[in-house]
């Protein structure tokens, strides 16, 4: 029934191969002289959960924006899935296999949960205007085919009860979940999560953590995540990269990073 879940005999062996999915080499980004990112290199391996942390203004969100092509870095090479690029039209990120959520929820407020998630399948729907006008035959078949996928995601993230609710009316925690659902609808290879738990209470954080792990585990999606809650970062991530003032100051397993003196200093030096 549930096609989201791969056949049962298949186990998570692929994750152990440690293949590099995304590689950033010496990337720099500046806005009119202001340096947001300075000469940063790191990689994300297929199947892992990679956290990007750092004090406020460290350039974390800019990093995600570089990865999905929203900002064009002035220097450096980005290799995703074996293909190298510097500039890319932002709307092409999805067809490359990169999806993301936003620090401040960026849902389509006037649309229902269902429509928001369906919008995430925009790049996969192709029936032309003629059929759309009839809403019959191929257009309807396509609509239903994608509705099925979307319903699986709704089931997966347990948001059945808000299927028809306009997202503007939802509480913040649920909006975040709908946003994750929309990102999943893009069936990404790499999922970028920008502070998925910001502004949530403990219970909501636990739910969200569970969903992130489920996504990583059951769908095999590689995840890059920005998060302020250190507890969450330590629990979820396989590897952590730490930024400060646009530079990389540490990179490694959570416990290594936690004990790194430079990281401790960076965090102590900044008040929250």
């Amino acid at each position, binding site marked *: 029934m549930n096609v989201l879940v791969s056949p049962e005999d298949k186990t998570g062996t692929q994750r152990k191969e440690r293949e590099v999915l995304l590689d950033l080499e010496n990337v720099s980004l500046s806005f009119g002289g202001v340096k947001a990112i300075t000469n940063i290199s790191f990689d994300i391996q297929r199947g892992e959960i990679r956290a990007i942390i750092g004090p406020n203004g460290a350039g974390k969100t800019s990093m995600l924006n570089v990865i*999905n092509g*929203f900002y064009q870095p002035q220097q450096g090479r980005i290799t995703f899935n074996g293909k190298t690029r510097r500039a890319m039209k*932002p*709307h*092409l*990120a*999805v*067809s490359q296999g990169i*999806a*993301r959520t*936003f620090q401040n929820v*960026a*849902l*389509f*407020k*006037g*649309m229902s949960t269902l*429509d928001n998630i*369906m*919008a*995430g399948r*925009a*790049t996969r*729907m192709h*029936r032309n*205007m003629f059929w*759309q*006008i*009839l*809403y019959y035959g191929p*257009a*309807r078949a*396509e*609509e*239903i085919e994608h*509705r*099925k996928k979307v319903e699986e995601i709704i089931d997966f993230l347990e948001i059945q009860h808000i299927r028809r609710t306009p997202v503007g009316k939802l509480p913040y925690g649920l909006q975040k979940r709908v946003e994750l659902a*929309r990102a999943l609808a*893009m069936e990404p290879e790499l999922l970028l999560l920008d502070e998925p738990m910001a502004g949530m209470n403990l219970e909501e954080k636990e739910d969200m953590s569970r969903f992130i792990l489920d996504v990583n585990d059951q769908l095999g999606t590689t995840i890059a995540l920005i998060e302020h809650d250190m507890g969450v970062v330590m629990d979820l991530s396989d590897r952590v990269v730490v930024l400060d003032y646009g530079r990389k100051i540490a990179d490694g397993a959570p416990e290594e990073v936690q004990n790194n003196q430079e990281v401790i200093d960076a965090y102590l030096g900044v008040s929250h």
Partner: protein
Amino acid sequence: MLYRTSGQFKTTYESDQALFPVKQDALLLGVILLAAYVVFPLTASEFTFKALLVPVLIYSLAAMGLNILTGYAGQLSLGTAGFMGVGAYACYKLTTIFPEMNVVVALALSGFFSAAVGVAFGLPSLRIKGFYLAIATLASQFFLVWLFEKWAWLYNYNASGAIEVRTMEFFGIVITGPTATPVTQYYFVLAVVTIIAFAMINLTRGRYGRMWKAVRDMDIAAELVGINLMRAKLTAFAVSSYVVGIAGALLVFFWKGAAEPNLFDIPLSFQILFIAIIGGLGSIIGNFLGAILLVALPVILNVLPDTLGLTINSATMEHVNDMIVGALIITFLIVEPHGLARFWALIREKLIIWPYPH
């Protein structure tokens, strides 16, 4: 109360995504269509056709076109009348260059001309946003009306500078020109409007509708879910202008009978915009409600003094009419900024949860 949805469960996505998943909505539409197709033609007077029914339909259609652009895709346009003019002039030229052409074909084709012009003027929307874009659409408005005036080829070098609709037949029935009966013209317009309205409903609830609404609600996010902004905006301009163009052609061919360039001047643009906004942005039925209000109101205001036995000269009446419409717009915006469609949606919601208050 009337909406009893219990027991209307869906076992397939086909039925869940049907045009009217709630039975009572379909029933209501049936009643309205019955009224439009059977009751009105049997009961309405010539005056009613000419002053009320036909204009309501045509204005609704124009507002529907505008609504696609402004209500669904979020691109504010102040140049609707110009595109209506393109439709009307295109239809006029088509029917004079190819006299044998079926009027339906000419009508359908003329929409493509306005769509092309719409796309051309829509190109700036890729760089310009918000009010700046609204002002930019005025450029098309002024430029097009000027063009209708100065380009004599458009009106076949008529001394009057106006276009006049000759008598044309549709499978042997006279449907345009002075000899066409109001009833046949009404039926024709009604059929066109019905077809386009269904087409627009379908379009807006499918992937195009989602694409447009995504651009409207948050263009950056839309881009990052993979929506090509250029394609989304230009299709909105194209579809919108197509519908608006057809409305313009209907306006001249099936209602006014003749047109001078200034018919398509800015007041018409505003009237269409009012209808769309009072009706409700982002809704299809709202256009009909808005048109009924804004077309019927002046007619009633004109008739009212007579029925009350008062004599007021028509110029004064027109001024009072302007004032009332202006005041009405402000009142409506204050009471329900989302228009009559939302108003109806609230009533429907009440009827569904009746007897509970909320």
